């Protein structure tokens, strides 16, 4: 049954692939705005690159959050899913996993290309990718709480950002610091371990909070 929910969400995303692509292009465009607005100086670009890529990833992931539950809510399939005889925790985990595969993995794959534009070395690109791989699932997990809480509310797009962005801060800090450390030539392992710890914590707690929020919002 777990695979049914993932399969369903992946088919749906494929049928609406324009949405996925627009998130990806949003990410690319936001990252490209920084050299234009600050300076093309390679030394400066290199020092702001970790922050720029991470902030852009945070913003891009906000865009896809709105679709996580709201389409299902509008057409009534969310009710049906809530009434299926299986733990809601697993359903939420499945939906978040599908959302991560569809919305976040393309960003992770695109990030090294953008990193090249900022003059990052090969080593740093590897660290950037690893940090995004560890950090973006946390964005999906925490974001799902915000998406569930704001389900069906007016202006839920902005509201979700208000609720979720402060909670993203630890991921942003550890992720950007890992890349920073790699640029400075030191070992990024401590930051990556912390990022992993945050991932483990949110994997345990976030779906639980999302389940509670979904039940509240569907009432």
């Amino acid at each position: 049954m777990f695979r049914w929910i993932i399969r369903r969400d992946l088919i749906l995303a494929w049928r609406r692939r324009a949405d996925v692509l627009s998130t990806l292009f949003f990410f690319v465009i936001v990252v490209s705005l920084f050299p234009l607005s600050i300076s093309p100086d390679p030394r400066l670009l290199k020092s702001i690159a970790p922050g720029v890529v991470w902030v852009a990833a945070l913003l891009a992931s906000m865009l896809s959050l709105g679709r996580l539950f709201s389409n299902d809510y509008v057409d009534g399939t969310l009710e049906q899913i809530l009434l299926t005889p299986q733990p809601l925790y697993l359903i939420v985990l499945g939906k978040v996993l599908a959302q991560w595969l569809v919305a976040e993995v393309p960003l992770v794959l695109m990030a090294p290309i953008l990193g090249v534009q900022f003059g990052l070395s090969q080593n740093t690109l590897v660290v950037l990718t690893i940090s995004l791989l560890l950090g973006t699932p946390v964005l999906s997990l925490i974001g799902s709480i915000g998406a569930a809480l704001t389900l069906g509310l007016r202006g839920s797009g902005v509201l979700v950002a208000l609720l979720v962005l402060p909670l993203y801060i630890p991921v942003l800090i550890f992720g950007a610091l890992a890349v920073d450390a790699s640029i400075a030539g030191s070992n990024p392992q401590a930051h990556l371990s912390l990022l992993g710890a945050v991932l483990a914590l949110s994997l345990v707690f976030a779906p639980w909070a999302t389940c509670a929020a979904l039940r509240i919002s569907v009432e």
Partner: protein
Amino acid sequence: MPNRKINWYKYAAPANFYPLAGKLIPWFGIPAALLFVAGLYIGFFVAPTDFQQGDAYRIIFIHVPAAWMGMFLYILMALYAGVGWAFNARLASMMATALSITGAMFTFLSLATGSLWGKPTWGTWWVWDARMTSTLILLFLYIGFISLQAAIDDPRRADRAGAVLALVGLINVPIIYFSVQWWNTLHQGATIRLLNKPTMAPPMLAAMLIMLAACWLYSIAIVLMRLRCIILEREHEAGRTLTLGAKTAQFSRMESI
């Protein structure tokens, strides 16, 4: 009243709590005002001038209690919201809503006074040090809670959604504080010693503690006032009537079929 049994559960019903809150407000409000005057007097006129910072340091008599209150009230708010959600206790949920605005106000006050203090002391309005940054994030968490509740029309959903958010925030606060600390030490940002504890003169300490007590009493009084407003609004919406003005509010329930 040692020998009289009081039915505390009676006051868990908003309509019964309403008149009680009305009676309690002056008992907290008036001492709060007196302590504010006393605390400010000692802080401004009795406490000695700091030999390093001059008179500018005196803002800590507002800044430090405000910062503490901002943090305590967030924890308190999350606990009340959680209790309200878990036990379906409407009064506790209303309490959380009433606390959120006061908490956000104190957090903002601590940021504003911190920045006012920063200008003469370090020559800049804002420093990205760990404490200031964490307080700013705390303010963001308050804003998230308040705007989520404001966006939801159904009070029951607003209470519960707020509770989930506040509890998620509560779990996150230590992680956020730790990450900001970590970020700050690595960037070798300005590390500021807020207080030189050994050199704090007794009148300074006294002023600080009096101000803290005043802030607590003020918070209780203002939260009770806000709670009364929320009770009125909610009970009105639920089709129940509270007779105002009378010493004991009448509570009648509209049963309809």
